[in-house]
């Protein structure tokens, strides 16, 4: 420890060398990468880095989370709203193992993260030393790349690689494990050089013009083409290119939950959400379209339902940056490999300007059926207990679709994603692939740091909130402004819904009790309110949004409401149920 403190020098410009510790080299690397916020938690094996951080307080804002999992989700929230890489610090052993859920979430949802973990001294590796775990092997399946540093000389280059890998191509989480001796060790530092190339790594496949031409030809012949878009559009910052493609081709487009907001919710060609709890038209008409154009999405089983009855009649065009996604789940007629920021304009140039009026009308007819059967009574109930849908609708009316909506996992997530209005890109932050309950509260903290000028509203169920509610402490201490809505149905609602529909109402351990959430928030000095009457809703939402700083609003909603429409597991998308 004393060794690290002796000579902490600000590194001079490249070529001249300075003696610095590995820890200082790490922090200089983060600054050079444009990092402004770190979510972390100190501990024994990462103490030299935290000691160096003490002198970097004016350049790097460190947010002390209450659990390392919260750190990863905050990093994810930050990355999703800012488009930058989220950075997380944790110590060895339990600190590092607590990262695993967040890493897995970031891996499956392609979120760029760089996690730095402390590790025991290199000479103690493999000896079951105090707080030693084999973090590299534990995290290998849930990281895009990971690396263990045992010598400080490696740090600048490895951190440069970490950022490059995390954000390039299909983004993902990277973990760098740094042994304590490397953090302390002084070495000749030559300055920091960003990485823009690794010889064995090809982040973006080469675009093949013949496939773009074949795709355009298919689209131009199509009578009933249909676009499915996912987070790839956001990750590629290709929202404008995507909008231009949709508007020129006149093709109706539906989104996966991570693709929400790539074009505004009220765009006339945005026909709604795909998947198990998606909209009626997009699901049914998947099996009636003649050409399916998938853009930056991966045909998750929650989107496709039963694969052997999925869009069998259609020719499939798949635009993706990751060649491993082509043909993984759905056989592709024409694969368009590449970054959609690059491929979409090429495709737009070749497609004919068209309007598929009758085909789009068909989507609208299905919407009408869905409004009558489901949406109207969910959003505008006149009596009885409040519904989740009407809370979202009232929130839309107040935020006008400008807020960042962060959701957890379960019924409230499906309802929020279905009904929230998104005018802007990077407005929907949710755990899509992994379905991590407990994601929303810490992710909302990160989301606010990533988009400081925007209102951030976390919508969370009573179950999920209790998984990471210790992060209220992070909100209290950092003073970050996060609006929290707990939709409390006094059940683990999604599992209860399945038990009702498929297990003869055998409600097995879904009846969850909650603490007094408002009192809990008050214990963290966060103001709050609990409402159960419809006429209080608008006023309470206003009070929450108008409050300077964080606010917790608990809304008591119907206990046994189901999310519809629904494609039951193992069924085809055209077997979607309205009740």
């Amino acid at each position, binding site marked *: *420890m004393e*060794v690290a403190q002796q000579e902490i020098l600000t590194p001079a410009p490249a070529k001249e060398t300075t003696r610095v510790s590995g820890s200082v080299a790490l922090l200089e690397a983060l600054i050079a990468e444009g990092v402004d916020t770190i979510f972390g938690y100190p501990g*024994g094996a990462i103490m030299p880095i935290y000691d160096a951080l003490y002198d970097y307080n004016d350049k790097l804002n460190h947010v002390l989370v209450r659990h390392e999992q919260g750190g990863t989700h905050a990093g994810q929230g930050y990355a999703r709203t800012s488009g930058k890489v989220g950075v997380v610090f944790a110590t060895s052993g339990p600190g590092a193992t607590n990262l695993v859920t967040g890493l897995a979430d970031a891996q499956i949802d392609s979120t760029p993260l760089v996690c730095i973990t402390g590790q025991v*001294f*290199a*000479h*103690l*590796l*493999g000896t079951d030393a105090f707080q030693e775990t084999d973090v*590299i*092997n534990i995290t*290998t*399946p849930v990281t*895009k*790349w*990971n*690396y*263990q540093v*045992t*010598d400080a000389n*490696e740090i600048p280059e490895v951190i440069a690689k970490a950022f490059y*890998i995390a954000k390039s191509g299909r983004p993902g989480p990277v973990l760098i494990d740094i*042994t*304590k*001796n490397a953090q*302390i060790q002084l070495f000749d530092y030559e300055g920091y050089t960003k990485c823009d190339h*690794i*010889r*064995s*790594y090809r982040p973006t496949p080469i675009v093949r013009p013949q496939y773009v031409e074949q795709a355009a030809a298919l689209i131009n012949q199509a009578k009933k083409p249909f676009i499915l878009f996912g987070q790839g559009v956001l990750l590629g910052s290709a929202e404008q290119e995507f909008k231009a493609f949709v508007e020129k081709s006149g093709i109706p487009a539906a989104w996966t939950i991570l693709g929400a907001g790539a074009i505004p919710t009220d765009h006339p060609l945005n026909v709604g959400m795909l998947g198990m709890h998606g909209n009626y038209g997009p699901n049914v008409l998947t099996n009636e379209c003649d050409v399916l154009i998938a853009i930056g999405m991966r045909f998750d089983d929650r989107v496709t339902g039963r694969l*052997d009855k999925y869009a069998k009649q259609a020719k499939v065009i798949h635009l993706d940056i*990751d*060649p*491993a996604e*082509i*043909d*993984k789940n759905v056989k592709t007629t024409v694969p368009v490999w590449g970054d959609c920021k690059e491929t979409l304009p090429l495709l737009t140039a070749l497609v004919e300007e068209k309007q598929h009026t009758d085909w789009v009308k068909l989507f609208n007819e299905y919407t009408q059926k869905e409004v009558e059967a489901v949406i109207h009574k969910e959003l505008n109930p006149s009596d009885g207990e409040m519904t989740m849908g009407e809370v979202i609708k009232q929130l839309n009316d107040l935020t006008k679709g400008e807020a960042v909506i962060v959701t957890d996992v379960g019924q409230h997530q499906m309802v929020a994603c279905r009904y929230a209005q998104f005018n802007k890109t990077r407005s929907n932050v949710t755990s899509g692939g992994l379905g991590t309950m407990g994601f929303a509260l810490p992710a909302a903290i990160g989301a606010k740091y990533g988009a400081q000028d925007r209102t951030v509203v976390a919508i969370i169920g009573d179950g999920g909130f209790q998984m990471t509610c210790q992060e209220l402490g992070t909100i209290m201490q950092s003073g970050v402004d996060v609006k929290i809505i707990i939709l409390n149905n006094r059940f683990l609602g999604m599992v209860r819904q399945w038990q009702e529909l498929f297990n003869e109402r055998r409600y097995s351990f879904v009846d969850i009790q909650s603490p007094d959430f408002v009192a809990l928030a008050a214990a963290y000095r966060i103001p709050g309110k609990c409402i159960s009457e419809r006429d209080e809703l608008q006023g309470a939402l206003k009070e929450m949004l108008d409050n300077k700083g964080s606010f917790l609003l608990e809304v008591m909603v119907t206990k046994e409401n189901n999310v519809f429409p629904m494609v039951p597991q193992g069924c085809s998308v055209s077997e979607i149920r309205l009740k």
Partner: protein
Amino acid sequence: MSNQEPIQQEFNITIYTENQVGLLNRIAIIFTRRKINIDSLNTSPSEIESIHRFNIVITESEDVVRKLTRQIEKQVEVLKVYYHTNEDVIWQELALYKVSTDVIAEKVSVERLLRENGARAVVIRKDYTVFETTGHREETDNLINILQPYGLIEFVRSARVAIIKDSEGFNAKLREFERLEPGEEVIENEYLNKGAKVFTM
């Protein structure tokens, strides 16, 4: 689903990689996460210094193998992945057999044994003899059957090594690749034996 199960057969997967600690695990878990058993795995240098080569054999359908190879190829330190059927490669496995020298000398003509099975004696000692044979699975299996009655003491077979019949094009690319960007040396933990000399808390 379609009534016909896809045909499973042996596939030889050839992976060109950087020489990097931990890469073996990163590749292995791509198989194990789908609960696929690896029949044989060999790591070795390739014809190019600094480029490493894995030979992996699994029994699966081509559709699954294609998906696996793409998932392997997207790993940061993997340069290129190929898969081939047994017909597309020239492959060999090496096997060693240990038998009692007394039994063998008494009961069989060693010379005949060697000749008929393409084997050679690696070591002949008073107490035991070690034979070696190289070939396809059937050939190495065959010698087990022959030696079993004479008290086979120990048997071991190596992983498969396979040369791709049609690999000239890629070799040229690989050499060019290495010429333009020479590889780096692998960094291992150099502190393991220096415990006493390393500062600690």
